[in-house]
Structure formats: C-alpha cells, structure tokens
C-alpha cells in the first residue's frame, strides 16, 4: 500500500512537471508551432495524472480514457497544423502577436517589438511555348457584365 502511494506521487510529480513546462511554454513562447507543442504537453501532463490515478484505484477506465485522448489529440494536431500552415501561407509569419484582429476596435494593437517584415520573392511561373492559335477575344463578353 505504501509503495502504491509513493508510485502515485511519482506519477503526479511527473505529470505536474510536464503540465507546468507546457503551460509556461504556452504563455512565454510566441511561435505558433511551439505554442501548439506546449499545449500538447499540457494535455499529456494531464494524461499522466489520469494514468497514475487509474493505477492507484485499480480501475482501468482512466487508462482507456487516455488512449482516447491520444487519438483525439492526433486528430486535433492534424487540424491545428493545417491551420498553422494556412496562417503561414496567408501572412508569411508565425508570430502569434501578428494576429490581434479580435481585439476591441478602439484599442491600440499591442507591440512589444516590431515584427520584422518578411519579403516574399515574386513567384516564378513556368513559361510554356505557345501552341496553336490564340483565340479571338470576345469584346461583348469583356465589356458587358450581367452581374455587378
């Protein structure tokens, strides 16, 4: 009984440490991917706690729940990374301070340091050799618009 309790303490200590590291990382870092990793770490810290308690109570429900959590976290990670990718495509930037659009209208944006401009090189499109005849432009269609 004594060893079971000390084992639980160990589980809880590790879980709390992982959760704490994740929380600090989430609050302190500004890179979206790192913040996402930190959030995952907090999730895993809670998972470890669940496993520890599950073992202590000799009840497997907690461990089964953790399996589900891992599955859900994997899905979530897929979606979240896709979102991050989209944001990068959109702005060429992964700094979280870049997206403050949901603030109140009359509040000034919070800037602790200037975000460096990212210069995107102009895309180089492949050039193809023209083939066949260029179609004649339909003037009617170009000048007349049915919908505005």
């Amino acid at each position, binding site marked *: 009984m004594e060893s079971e309790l000390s084992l639980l303490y160990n589980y809880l200590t590790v879980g709390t440490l992982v959760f704490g590291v994740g929380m600090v990382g989430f609050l302190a870092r500004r890179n979206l991917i790192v913040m996402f990793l930190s959030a995952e770490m907090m999730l895993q810290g809670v998972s470890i706690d669940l496993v520890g308690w599950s073992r202590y109570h000799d009840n497997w429900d907690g461990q089964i729940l953790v399996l589900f959590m891992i599955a859900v976290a994997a899905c979530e990670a897929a979606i979240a990374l896709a979102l991050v990718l989209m944001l990068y495509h959109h702005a060429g930037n992964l700094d979280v301070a870049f*997206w*403050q659009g*949901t603030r109140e209208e009359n509040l000034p944006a*919070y800037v602790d340091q200037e975000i460096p401009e990212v210069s995107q090189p102009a895309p180089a499109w492949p050039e193809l050799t023209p083939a066949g005849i260029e179609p004649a432009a339909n003037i009617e269609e170009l000048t007349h618009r049915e919908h505005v």
Partner: protein
Amino acid sequence: MSESFLHLLLVLIPALPLAAAVVTAALGPRLLRQQSHVPTVAALVLATIGSAVLLVGVWQQVRESGGGPRETIGWSTTVELWSWAEIGGAYGSPPPSFRDAPAGFDVGIVLRVDPLTAGMLAMVTFVATLIAVYSTGYMHDDPSYWRFFSYISLFAFSMAMLVSVSNFVLLYVFWEAVGACSYLLIGFWYTKREAAAAGKKAFLVNRVGDFGFALAVMLIWTTYGTLNFHDTSQSAGVLGQTMLQEPQRYVAGGVGLAICLLLMLGACGKSAQFPLHVWLPDAMEGPTPVSALIHAATMVTAGVYMVTRCMPLFLVSPAAQTTVAVIGATTALMAGLIAMSQNDLKRVLAYSTISQLGYMFLSLGTGTLLGVVAGMFHLLTHAFFKALLFLGAGSVMHAMGGVIDIERIGGLRRRMPITHGTFLVGCLALAGIAPLSGFWSKDSILGAVHERGHHGDHVAIFWWLYIAAMVTVVLTALYTFRAFFKTFYGPEQIPSAAGSHGHESPRSMSVPLLVLAVCAAGAGAFLVPFSEFIVNTPSLADPRIALDQPAHQMHLNVALTSTACAVGGIVLAGVLYLRSAAALSWIVRRLRGLYVLSRQKFFLDEIYAVLVVWPCLGLATAAYWFDRRIIDGLVQAAVAVPLRVGQLLRGMQTGLVQVYALLMVLGLVAVAGVLLR
C-alpha cells in the same frame, strides 16, 4: 314600369361605376393603359341611360299615385339588399320619445328612390358622363391615366349611393366615401407639393364638418331610436310616412335645434359654406375635370341634398332655418366679394361655386316649399353651367399650357371660338340673364327669400338677406364677366408656356362643352315640371310646408330687379375691364380696405393659421420634444448602464492569445486557491 324594375335600375346605377372602378384599377396599369377610360365611360353611359329610365319610371309612378286618395305623403320606394347590422337592445332603457321604436340598432343596406333621388341620380350620372368624356381629351398624356378613371368611377359610385341610401349611417358612410374620392383626386398629382397640401387641407377641414354630422347622427339615434329614413316593420323611420303624418312627433326645442345645427355643420364642411369654405379654392389644385365634377357640380351639393332630405327635421326649428339662411347669404356675399379680385380663373370659379352654394342654403333656410324647390332647382342648373364654366376653364388651361392666370392671358376669342361661345353661355347663365337656366333658378330663390321677408318668423332678418342676395347678383355678374372679358377680350396675350398648343381643344373636349352649354341654356324650361315632380318627395311633401303653398311662383318685380342688377354688373364689368382702366384704379384706390380684404380672402386662412394651425403645431412640437427628450431619454438612460460597464471590461479584449491564456491560468489559480483553502 313595375317597382321591381325600378329597384333593379336603382341597384345597377351605382353598381356599374363600382364595377368599372374595380376593373380599371385591376387591369388599368398593365392591360388597358391608354384605353383605361373605356370601362368608366361605358359604365357611366349605361348608368345615365338607367337614370333617365328611372326618372321616367318615377314620373309615371308619381302621376299614377297622384290621382288616388292622399293617404301617403309623397311617393318613394325602397329595396333592401341585405342587413348590415342588427344589434338588439342596443339602447338600455329607451326614452319616451322612442314610442314604438324597438331600441335596437338595425342598419340595412337599403336603397330608396323618390323624385329627389331620381333627379339627383340623373344629374350626377349625366354630368359625370360628360366629364369622363372630356377627361379622355384633357388627361390624354398623363402617366396615371388609369388611376384617374378608377377614381372617377369610384366617385360616381359613392355619389350615386349617397343620394340613394335610406339610412343615416349609410349616408354618413358615403358622405365620407365621396370625401375620400375628393381627397384622392385633389391630390391626384401628389408629387406636386401644393396639390398634396390642398388635399390634406380639404380632408382636415371636412373632418370638422363630418364631426358635426357624426354627432347629429348619434343625436338622431338617441332621440328617435332609429336611423332609417323609411318605415320598417319594427320602427317608424325618421323621414317615414308615420312621422310625416304625425309631425308633432318630431322633437322640437333644444334637441331639435342641436340636431339641425350639427347637420348644418356637416353640410357646411362638405358644401364649403362659411366658415368651413377655405378648402374649396385650394381644391382647384386637382385636375380641372375633377374641379368641374366634384368641386362644382356634384359632391359639394351633397350638403344641399342632405339638408333638403332632412327638411322635416329643420321644420321644427325656425331658429335653425334662419341660421341656415344667414350662413348661406353670408357665404354668398363674402365669396362674391373675394371672387372680385382673384386672378386665377379656376379660383374665381371656385369662389363663385361657394357663392352659388350659399344661394342654395339661403333658399333652403327660408323653410318654405317655394324656397326648398328653388334651392334644388338651382342645384340642378348650377351643376350644368358651373360644370360648363370649369370645363371651359380647363379648355383654356389645356391650350395655354397650364397657365390660368387671367392677367397673363387675353383675347382668346379668335383662337378658341367654341370655348369662347360656350363660356359666354355659362357666364350669362351664372349671371342670371333670361332666358338662360340660371335666371329661372336664381330668380326662384330671390322670389322665395323676398316672400319670406314678408311672412313667417324673423321677417326682418330675411329682408336683409334679400338685400344681400341682390347685392350678390351684381357681384356675380361683375366677377363672372371680369374673368370672361380678361380671358377672351382685350389684346391677344398668350403665355410662352402655351407653345404650339394655343388652339381650340380636341373634339372629345369641345363636344361635352357644347352639350353642357345646351343644358345650361335650356334647363330653365324645366322649372315648372321639375317643381311639380320634386314636391312628391316625402320630405318635401311634408304637410307642414306642402299645404296651400305653390311650388313655384314668378315675382315680376323681383325678376326685373335682379335682371337689372345682373345687366348692370355686366355693363360695369365691360366698362371697367375693357374700356377704362383709369376708372378701375380709381375705384380700387377709393375702396382700398375692401380691395385688400377681398384680395386676401378676408384673411380667413391667416386667422385659421393663428387660431388652429399654430396651436396644433405648437402642441405637436411639444409632444415631439417630450417624446424625444423624456421618453427616449429614459430608454437611453437604461441603455447607458450596460454600455458603461461594458466599456470598463473592454480593455481586456486585446486580441492576444497569450493574454487570454494568462487570464485562464490566473482564473485556474484563483479557483484552486479557493478549493485548497
């Protein structure tokens, strides 16, 4: 003709214009367009034929019943279409004056025909038909052509119903219906500010009169326990045989006087009598055919019709009769004076209409059979010659590109010979020159008033009223021929707005003018038959006035005096406006005060502005301020509380993810702190 055939005609005469109104309104904008006049003209022509047949049928019936024993008073017949309201025991404990009344509120849709109704129907449908034909020319390029004819049909329906219903409630309903049509047609060109304002003014001023009429109707119900004109199986109608044969059942005294005065207030509103006449001159903003039909020939005579119909009620109260006569004479004289100095041809005619309606009321106010018949006959002849004059003015207006200011037009007799000739006939009839119709009717009125100045109550008042009426004869001739000479004689003067239009009007407009001119000239020939016919109306066959009194009478000295006055007026107009401008300006200088009064319409509009419009505006402004500041202020105060609180918390919404996360962590710590305490 059997009575059931007459009933059929009586239903068809209003039903046809109603059908035309509905058809025109439904199909006009898309299907009929420039042919929108077809249903209206067709319906009105049929209704006119029906009215003529009805008139002949009533004539026959009257002649047949005239030979028999006189147990009935007058001749009338009613047809009940359906029952509109039946409220039993509406009057808790009926007063003794109800006698055998059931004390229930029963209103049936009942139409009646008697000589008065038949005559009015014939006049209304006939004039309406001519004016509808005229309108096809006058309105031909108007974008709302269909709307005009729809309204005209609706008006013809309402007016036909007004003169043929047999119940005060329905009379009130159609009294309002013609008022609504008048409002719609005055404001026909509603995008024009003046027209919209004139429509509103007409509507509001009429409300005052209608308020009186409504009170009168209520008072009649509480006094007599029924609102029907005719007898029913349950109750004796207000103007039915039972009451007429026992005239002592009419309630006299204060109640009788109040009923009459309130009815007269209603008549004053609708028939533009002093002091409620102010809407009629402004109503000239409507299209000219409307002015001719509604504001000269038919609707404005509704008051005269109503007072004639209610004559048995007026007979119990000499004071009310004298009031009617005084209002009529005052209006006639005042409107005549105002018409002297107006420069708008249609306004001159409008004031002339008011003046002539004043004559009719003066005549009704005598309370003698002679007077009432004369008033009704003047209504008929006036409808012809005033419609003629208005249509003539419309023809001038059409040719002059909408300009109607008699200072800016002149010498049109060569360019517009038909209009000139027919207008001359109308002017002569209006001035009362023998043998045109106006002479006979106006002379009957003057004769009746003269007679009344010798016999009956308030003799002295009627003597003065006779003099006022005679002065008005001079004024009538003077202002009529002033407008006539200024328009058609003198140096030719055509405003630039006329463009290439300065020619005679199309045939659709000149033919109605010619027909009306013939009527205006010849209607006087029907004085004797009309009088003998109309006295068979139950209301006029009341033994209190009908016994031992002639229905018409010729006063040679009155006729000579009035003709002399009229000719004098015409000659004076000729001298002043064609020959000698110096004499005119001399007179204007000498009568400066009167001229200003006349020119400014006795300042009545200004007086009403101060007494009525400004207090109303002040009240409205105060109410607006109260609503804006106090009511809205309370709401704004209630809104401000959440707004302020929200502003306090708003600073936390920075949009930074990490701030939100930090706040969550702090919240978590706080919760944990509370739980682990």
